[in-house]
């Protein structure tokens, strides 16, 4: 009675529709910056944001006065005016926000790229600052007694946290596809191995074994502790500018080849249980636009940074972005496929949200830039395009970066 076909066509991932993208390779990331990652950092989110932006401008070799565009998460605590007052920016001509938490990261880059490509601004900064590791900051713990809106259909019954909501999809995914906890462990172990090489990763010194994964405590069955991302204080920023300003910087420009956002029919944020096929989430919608706007196909991509608030999002995203067929994402993770250096698709090469830091996925964007610069601590040889994705399970976004 309520098939998705009633709300719009479903195109195959990767289908070329012939549409040109006005931003293809028109803009580049020319600077990246970040603070340390940790728990209980003293500085405010605004201060952390300003420090990361200053570091990104230094990396680009740019003065604050060159910035005239600001692109940020709607959840950001430090707003445009405060950031501009601290960094001493001049006239700002583009400022905009993207919603839906972890789905926003590549979206804020996309918005900045659009603003630069259309001439609304010349150089934009985009950032995310977060103090997640403070227990008082957990949004799920700050609920009023009467729940309104979409959460009124799930929270009273004890789906309190994001992990409970994704665990529901994970159990269904296991049922439909034969995925097992071993597959989720493949994800956790691959990313931990990458973090062990990354001196900035929160889990750099902590090794993880399959045995430890299997023995860890449940958080929301079928998901255990190591299926969850970290809780992190920290901030990251990037500088985006046009081709004319992108050359002759301290580092080679990393081109924003394609960018897309996606919100599929009948989607509901996190509790996406009410559409015809909840396992075809926002990744599928985003991928349709991303590949159509690109010169590349999934087969061309040799390194990826895939949003990993929870391990099951990796197989779901591998399917959505077309690296394998429907139901094949878990099997894709076998034989070390996600592991640097020998896997077929080294993924989250800095450790990702599960083992480097969880800053709403923004660290995945910076790692994508490092891969294209050739400066990752798990550098994939001859990688010339990197997929970066934002949160699956919410209206989301993705980038294809190239060098």
């Amino acid at each position, binding site marked *: *009675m*309520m*098939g998705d076909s*009633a*709300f719009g066509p479903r195109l195959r991932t990767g289908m070329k529709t012939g549409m040109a993208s006005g931003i293809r390779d028109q803009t580049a990331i020319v600077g990246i910056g970040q603070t340390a990652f940790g728990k209980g950092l003293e500085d405010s989110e605004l201060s952390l944001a300003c420090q990361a932006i200053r570091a990104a401008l230094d990396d680009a070799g740019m003065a604050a006065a060159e910035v005239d565009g600001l692109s940020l998460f709607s959840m950001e605590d430090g707003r445009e005016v405060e950031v501009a007052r601290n960094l001493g920016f001049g006239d700002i001509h583009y400022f905009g926000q993207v919603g839906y938490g972890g789905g926003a990261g590549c979206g804020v880059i996309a918005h900045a790229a659009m603003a630069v490509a259309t001439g609304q601004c010349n150089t934009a900064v985009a950032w995310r600052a977060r103090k997640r590791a403070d227990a008082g900051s957990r949004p799920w*713990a700050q*609920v009023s*007694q*009467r*729940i*309104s809106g*979409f959460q*009124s*259909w*799930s*929270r*009273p*019954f*004890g*789906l*309190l*946290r994001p992990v*409970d909501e994704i*665990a*529901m*999809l994970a*159990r*269904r995914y296991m*049922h439909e596809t034969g995925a097992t906890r071993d597959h989720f462990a493949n994800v956790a172990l691959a990313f931990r191995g990458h973090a062990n090489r990354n001196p900035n990763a929160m889990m750099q010194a902590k090794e993880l074994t399959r045995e430890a994964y299997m023995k860890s*405590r*449940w*958080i*929301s*069955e*079928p998901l255990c502790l190591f299926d969850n991302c970290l809780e992190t204080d920290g901030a990251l920023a990037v500088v985006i500018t046009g081709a004319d300003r992108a050359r002759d910087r301290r580092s080679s420009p990393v081109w924003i080849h394609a960018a897309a956002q996606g919100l599929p029919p*009948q989607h*509901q944020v996190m*509790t996406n*249980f*009410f*559409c*015809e096929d909840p396992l075809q989430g926002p990744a599928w919608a985003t991928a349709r636009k991303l590949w159509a706007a690109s010169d590349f196909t999934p087969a061309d991509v040799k390194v990826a940074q895939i949003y990993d608030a929870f391990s099951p999002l990796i197989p779901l995203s591998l399917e959505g972005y077309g690296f394998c067929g429907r139901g094949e994402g878990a099997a894709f993770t076998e034989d070390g496929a996600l592991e640097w250096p020998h896997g077929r698709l080294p993924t989250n090469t800095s450790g990702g949200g599960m083992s480097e830091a969880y800053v709403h996925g923004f660290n995945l964007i910076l790692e994508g830039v490092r891969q294209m610069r050739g400066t990752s601590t798990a550098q994939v040889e001859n990688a010339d395009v990197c997929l970066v994705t934002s949160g699956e399970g919410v209206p989301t976004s993705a980038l294809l970066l190239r060098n």
Partner: protein
Amino acid sequence: MESSFLLPDTEDPVSAPFWEGTAVGELRVQACGECGRWRMPPRPMCPVCQSLETVWRPTSGQGHVWSYVRPHPPLLPAYAEVAPYDVAVVSLAEDPAIRFVGNLVTEASAPMNSLSEGHVAIGMEVRVVFPAPQEGVVLPRWSPA
């Protein structure tokens, strides 16, 4: 913090008829008054024909488990006390795309953790049951059919 369960806002005019139904032991679904399409969760406009005409239909209260989870602490205190407990997404017999989140329990008044591990499976048939009201609100629950 006082230990109590979260309750929905039952005064939102769009969804109030759902809660009026559970209060009298009826599981209702919102439907379009023009094309008849059922929709869940409730909303003002039909996504197929864009009509604002809304009616509420009684359902069989029969369904099957689409998926389920068992949350463990850390949780809000009231939930932590009964954890791990069973929460399912149930597909309605009349239309499997109409789904409800709810607790799986042995009977209407049983605690949220009353079904022992291994007694829940995707596909198991369940029926809606209605516990006593909490602060005037009846949260529908599901028991093995």
